[in-house]
């Protein structure tokens, strides 16, 4: 249901976007005759009434994977998107996974050992991390990384390595990925830490934890066997919710690190006012987030037996 809404919004938004597409394609060249303009319009289907004709036409095209042609790159939008998709997935995926691992672990420790040094430290870190703008951290790490460690400042791989098989360029890829991934991880870690901590505190106050202790389980056994599974449930929801924000973060980070992924593409499309590209990218991003959310719902149902019945 939400997908429908998104699609609709997407369409409306971009049709509302003035700046005659034809004009933009032609550029500043105003000497094109009115007839040619009209012909172009017909070709783009812009002369038909917006609704329902254009709408369903576009819908049909999208269903077939035709997202139009990028004005600035002169290639089909879907092709452009696909080529950059994996880069972004790699970056986001890595960053999130690391953030989850570290964040959840830290949150567990912080909640378990409340008010100790580790808890205070973790809380402080999360607090500060939340207040730091994504791109600023990226800039700092970029500056520090390149100045002190000679890490590359742009791109996914060095120009010399483009197109080579994955295995051979792994070290180079790693070097390029390091800083952007680090930025992502640091920023998202804090949030996972906080949620996990809060979740653990809730869980550890429950009666069944006392029962477990009364059974003779050690603290660690109680945590591992009983508390953890219950505490992880909110995390799953959080991961789903986060996907939207991660995409946003990717836009900033890819811009700062000139990382050739969807985020950078989006930003470039924006600057160049390449509307088909912008529209296509937006559609892709929105739809993937929605799909991911649905997957998370399914996952949650699998983990929590209470939900299965509903």
């Amino acid at each position, binding site marked *: 249901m*939400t997908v429908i*809404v*998104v699609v609709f*919004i997407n369409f409306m*938004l*971009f049709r*509302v*976007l*003035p*700046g005659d597409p034809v004009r933009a394609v032609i550029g500043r060249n105003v000497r094109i005759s009115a007839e040619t303009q009209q012909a172009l319009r017909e070709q783009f289907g812009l002369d038909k009434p917006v609704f329902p004709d254009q709408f369903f036409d576009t819908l049909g095209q999208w269903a077939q994977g035709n997202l139009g042609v990028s004005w600035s790159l002169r290639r089909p939008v879907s092709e452009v998107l696909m080529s950059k998709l994996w880069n972004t997935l790699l970056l986001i995926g890595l960053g999130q996974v690391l953030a989850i691992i570290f964040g959840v672990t830290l949150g567990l420790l912080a*909640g378990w*050992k*409340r008010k100790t040094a580790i808890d205070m430290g973790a809380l402080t870190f999360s*607090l*500060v991390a*939340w*207040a*730091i*703008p*994504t*791109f*600023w951290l990226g*800039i*700092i790490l*970029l*500056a520090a990384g*390149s*100045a002190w460690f000679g890490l590359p*400042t742009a791109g996914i791989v060095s120009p010399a390595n483009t197109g080579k098989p994955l295995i051979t360029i792994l070290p180079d890829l790693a070097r390029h990925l390091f800083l952007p991934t680090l930025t992502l991880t640091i920023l998202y870690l804090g949030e996972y830490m906080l949620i996990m901590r809060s979740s653990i*505190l809730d869980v*550890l*106050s*429950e009666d069944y*934890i*006392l029962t477990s*202790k009364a059974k003779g389980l050690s603290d660690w056994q*109680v*945590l591992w066997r009983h508390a953890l599974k219950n505490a992880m449930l909110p995390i799953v929801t959080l991961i789903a*919710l986060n*996907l*939207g*924000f991660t*995409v*946003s973060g990717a*836009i*900033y980070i890819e811009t*700062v690190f000139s990382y050739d992924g969807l985020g950078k593409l*989006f*930003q470039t499309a*924006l*600057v160049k*006012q390449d509307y088909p590209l*912008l529209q296509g*990218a*937006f559609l892709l*991003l*929105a739809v993937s*987030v*929605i799909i991911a*959310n649905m997957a998370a719902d399914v996952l949650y149902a699998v983990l929590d037996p209470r939900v299965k019945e509903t």
Partner: protein
Amino acid sequence: MNENRTLFKRNLSDFWKAFRRNKLGLLGGFLVLTAILAATFAPLLSPYMPTEVIRDANGRGLTFAPPSVHAPLGTDDAGRDIWSQLIYGARVSLTVGFLAGFIAMFVGSLFGILAGYFGGRVDNLLMRVTDVLLVIPDLPLMLVLVATLRQMDLRISPLVVLVAVIGLLYWTSTARLIRSQVLTIKERQFVARSRAIGAGHAHIIRKHILPQIMPLIVTNTVLIISTAILVESGLAFLGLGDPTKPSWGAMLNFAFDRSAVTNGAWWFYLPPGFAIVWVTLGCVLLGNVLEEMLNPRLTAHHLESNQNMIAIQKQGGE
């Protein structure tokens, strides 16, 4: 009437005492206050105008000069004083942040109250809308909206555009929060009683519900403002701010685009970000301490340290 006032004063002094005890809250308050003061007294605090180019002895712009006596935070790529830009930038960042935050808070509270109080279809509609908004990634949507609005030649300042866009997208969390609170309040007895004696909806909302959710609204506003400031800085960084009135985010945009990084001009890209963190952290600390005071988590959990459980005092003389 008088007793209401004394009650209020006493509550206020209790509140202040509790607030003072929490060091972090004080820190937060300090951070926010200094930022606001700096923005207000900008002309007094900055030695130069932000657009003024500092020239050296030969009349050439003092570009990328490191911090010195003349310019405490150095100069940018055109020779303008960073410190002054920072102070004036505060005005923009804070204004946009606060305004957007208030809009988000207002819209959110309104919808939250309506949905929670009236329930039924209004509630359903609201839930649908928030669901959709929650799912759509925020930055791409905002970028698209801003791009659209700009294209429309509406002759509004880009800052107004930012305020509008941020305010219109970030109300959802507030709405949900307020809604659930209103739902709990609605269940309570006095609402039913008020209805029984024929009180109108507006009256009930004003007298019963609003006072109870006020603390929640205030806390939430502070946190929303911090988000708004962050978001504005992000949008400005991507070039969507007003070039003539640069906020901190815009300064970072300049820094990045004009190769401050490659030139090693850390005084250009560090301070604006630092300022953002300063204010945002302040708001978050404030918001957190307010939240602590409203919902303190009192009980310890079952695995909390119990090494002192057996504390048998020895009888004297043994």
